[in-house]
């Protein structure tokens, strides 16, 4: 549009066109005007409604490179690719649309509100597509929806609260999208079995009703959660797998987690957690994969943890632990690098350890992570120790605030004590502890607060209990002392920022703010060892890509993570556990220098190491989509549904309301994330494939899909092998992704849609920040990095970036992944 407000004829025409293509319903959700040819005959009214819904959806698709919807023509909706019918649950004599499965279709478009007409839908699977916008409110009509998988798309905006209105929902997968803002606490009160919201931009503190969630698995990795790990975590009765890695949690781990007897995977790596590990972890008898790497934990590792009967991998590198029981050295997989462990290789420098140990002790009670309930109680008594840094202990408890650094501990007292009702009652007496021995019986600290560490005295310092039994809840030694009533010293504990960093070079300094993790230094080192280099570096940029055509992106593995947010240190790379991750350069400094840390590695880690997964496998390469392989030539579709445009009499389904103005949807983000994110492609990997094969997902696949003609291209499935780790994770998509609709017509390849003029052109500005990309290849860390200087090169359009590295944006055209290993199913 021109700035003076005048529109050219061409602009007017395009805008008019757009307005005719869709309307908005009372919720502001987009819908499409669908005309039903009166000559069509439907088996029953439900299938007629399904027809309307699917035709609307087809009209809302801008690109379907693999021709999944090409045969979405006519009244036999049950024969449409990706559409699955079954006898209706309330009337076995009629067929109805029971499932939609467009996984890995690479389709670009949005979800029209007409999808709410698919009222008998039990499955809605659209992993790895390019759907953008939001989830229509009319989805609340899907009373039988059991599984909602919107993963790896481009949905944006706030958490789609409509999912909370789905009474039958059990499986919710929103991962790898661009959702932002808080997550409603009601999510945890809902009767779900699986919550996957990792790799988005959610930012908030976990509510204290987390423990009410009956899920067997929850993954919130790679978001911007911060604050407490609620003590109610220990109440999650059905929990088996939990991954909270790569967020900004900055409290202690509550001793209540010892009650999680069925947990096999517990990964809280790459956060800012402090204190010592609760000895109660020794009660988590089903534990197989335990990862707390890249935090600021200190104290001694309770021997009970390393004695867990099923523990396959225990990764606690990049912390400040000062004691490690010998039994830990006998685990099938473990990683203790970069701590302050005497006589162990690859530890932090004495300077770093000394700097850390000089910090005020951590007072876990000061975080106030218990169930809140009450308001501010009075309490303040923080008497005792005047804590130094602590400063005014302010009494107030306000609920919230714990967040960040504890410094001034908000909570008064006892930390949280009040709150935490459940659990730990009073002191000693009860021993909650699970079976395990020593463990925690006593709950630690008086205050109720989780035991953990109250005191962690400086690391090196006190020799706490070294002896094996760590008994008391975690906080061993000192018990006596500390307890001060009120929770004592308020304190500041931790972190304030400044501390740590010791100038020492290499190693990661934990920079204050940022979690240490990223560590820069690391990159290199270790890594090499691991075999797996495999990861294909796929360049990928998933995210974005505009050009529809290319199948690209989606899959690829490395995805960029999400968010760009600055705040977080990049962190990133995470995946790997292993330490070295390359990482991201933390904040600003670009310089990657990585000097190898001192000791460097050497450590050949034992095999598995880290866990993360399992590297093993092949990176799943994404599916290669070959570009258009397939299929028949796309019929030209115009938007009109059926070929022959039927005559007139259309019946429109919803009255259109053309809303004028609105351009596209709104979602737009204003800024695209700046993405500075380093990309690490596949990082680390380190590990060997350890243990688990992570991936669960999938397996071979069985039977071929039903009708289909086309193979969907890609199979992607990689899963099979698991390697999990992902790696790449992190990074945000490269740039901004286009706001939903706007696809400007880049070079429009094939797509037939009219190029809508993107309305807001504005948005794409080059993202603000030029990202820095780093890439490291696994092996030698080459860190390449681009400095961010301004000129980013990236323009949206063009594609062809050099493959390898890909910068951020460009879509990578079909990258073929090298190994196409996974057998495609089909």
């Amino acid at each position, binding site marked *: 549009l021109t700035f003076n407000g005048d529109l050219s004829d061409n602009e007017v025409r395009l805008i008019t066109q757009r307005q005719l293509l869709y309307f908005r319903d009372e919720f502001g959700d987009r819908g499409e005007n669908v005309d039903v040819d009166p000559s069509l005959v439907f088996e029953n009214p439900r299938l007629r409604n399904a027809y309307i819904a699917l035709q609307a959806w087809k009209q809302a698709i801008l690109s379907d490179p693999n021709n999944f919807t090409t045969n979405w023509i006519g009244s036999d909706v049950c024969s449409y690719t990706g559409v699955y019918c079954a006898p209706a649950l309330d009337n076995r004599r009629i067929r109805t649309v029971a499932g939609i499965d467009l996984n890995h279709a690479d389709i670009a478009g949005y979800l029209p509100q007409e999808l709410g007409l698919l009222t008998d839908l*039990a499955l809605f699977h659209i992993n790895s597509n390019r759907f953008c916008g939001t989830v229509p409110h009319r989805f609340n009509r899907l009373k039988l929806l059991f599984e909602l998988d919107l993963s790896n798309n481009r949905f944006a905006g706030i958490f789609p609260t409509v999912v909370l209105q789905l009474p039958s929902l059990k499986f919710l997968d929103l991962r790898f999208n661009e959702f932002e803002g808080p997550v409603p606490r009601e999510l945890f009160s809902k009767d779900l*079995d699986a919550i996957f919201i990792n790799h988005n931009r959610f930012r908030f503190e976990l509510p204290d009703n987390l423990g009410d969630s009956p899920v*067997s698995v929850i993954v919130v990795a790679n978001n911007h959660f911060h604050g407490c790990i609620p003590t109610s975590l220990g109440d999650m009765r059905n929990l088996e797998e939990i991954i909270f890695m790569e967020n900004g949690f900055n409290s202690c781990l509550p001793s209540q987690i010892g009650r999680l007897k069925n947990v096999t995977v517990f990964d809280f790596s790459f956060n800012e957690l402090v204190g010592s590990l609760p000895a109660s972890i020794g009660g988590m008898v089903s534990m197989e994969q335990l990862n707390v790497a890249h935090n600021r934990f200190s104290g001694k590792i309770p021997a009970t943890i390393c004695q867990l009967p099923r523990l396959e991998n225990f990764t606690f590198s990049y912390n400040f632990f000062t004691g490690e029981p010998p039994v830990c050295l006998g685990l099938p997989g473990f990683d203790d690098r970069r701590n302050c462990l005497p006589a162990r290789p690859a530890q932090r420098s004495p300077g770093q350890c000394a700097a850390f140990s000089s910090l005020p002790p951590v007072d876990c009670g000061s975080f106030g992570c218990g169930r809140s309930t009450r308001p501010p109680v009075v309490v303040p008594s923080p008497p005792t120790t005047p804590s130094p840094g602590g400063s005014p202990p302010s009494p107030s408890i306000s609920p919230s605030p714990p967040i960040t650094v504890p410094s001034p501990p908000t909570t008064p007292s006892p930390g949280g004590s009040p709150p935490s009702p459940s659990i730990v009652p009073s002191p000693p007496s009860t021993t909650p502890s699970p079976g395990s021995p020593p463990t925690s019986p006593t709950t630690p600290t008086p205050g109720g607060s989780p035991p953990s560490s109250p005191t962690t005295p400086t690391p090196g310092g006190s020799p706490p209990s070294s002896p094996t039994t760590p008994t008391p809840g975690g906080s061993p030694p000192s018990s006596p002392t500390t307890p001060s009533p009120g929770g004592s010293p308020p304190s500041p504990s931790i972190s304030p920022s400044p501390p740590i960093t010791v100038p020492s070079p290499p190693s990661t300094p934990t920079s204050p703010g940022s979690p240490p993790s990223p560590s820069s230094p690391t990159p290199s080192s270790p890594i090499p060892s691991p075999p797996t280099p495999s990861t294909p570096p796929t360049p990928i940029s998933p995210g974005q890509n505009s050009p529809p055509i290319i199948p690209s992106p989606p899959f690829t593995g490395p995805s960029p993570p999400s968010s760009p947010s600055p705040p977080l240190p990049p962190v990133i790379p995470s995946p790997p556990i292993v330490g070295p991750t390359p990482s991201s350069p933390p904040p600003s400094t670009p310089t990657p220098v990585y000097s190898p840390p001192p000791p460097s590695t050497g450590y050949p880690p034992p095999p598995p190491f880290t866990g993360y997964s399992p590297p093993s496998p092949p990176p799943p390469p*994404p599916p290669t989509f070959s570009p258009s392989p397939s299929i028949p030539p796309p019929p030209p579709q115009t938007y009109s549904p059926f070929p022959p445009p039927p005559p007139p009499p259309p019946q429109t389904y919803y009255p259109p309301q053309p809303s004028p103005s609105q351009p596209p949807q709104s979602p737009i983000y204003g800024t695209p994330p700046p993405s500075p994110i380093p990309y690490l492609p596949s990082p680390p990997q380190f590990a060997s494939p350890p243990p688990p094969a992570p*991936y*669960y997902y999938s*397996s071979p696949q069985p039977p071929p899909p039903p009708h289909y003609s086309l193979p969907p291209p890609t199979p992607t*499935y990689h899963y099979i092998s*698991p390697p999990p780790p992902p790696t790449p994770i992190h990074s945000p998509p490269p740039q901004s992704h286009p706001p939903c609709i706007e696809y400007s017509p880049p070079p429009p390849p094939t797509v037939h849609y009219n190029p809508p003029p993107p309305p807001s052109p504005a948005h794409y500005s080059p993202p603000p920040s030029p990202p820095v990309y780093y890439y490291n290849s696994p092996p030698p860390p080459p860190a390449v990095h681009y400095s961010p200087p301004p000129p980013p090169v990236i323009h949206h359009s063009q594609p062809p970036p050099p493959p390898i590295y890909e910068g951020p944006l460009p879509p990578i055209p079909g990258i073929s992944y090298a190994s196409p290993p996974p057998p495609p199913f089909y």
Partner: protein
Amino acid sequence: ATRRYISYGALRRNTIPCSRRGASYYNCRRGAQANPYSRGCSAITRCRRS
């Protein structure tokens, strides 16, 4: 133990719990009925995909 963890699998963007088209993620066993309403397990962590 080649156990596969659905949680670690979720860290990869393009993975899905079950590759059988049209089947519930909770009914991924080989030979299972391909009906969206059919489910063979109740906890995704324990649903085996054969």
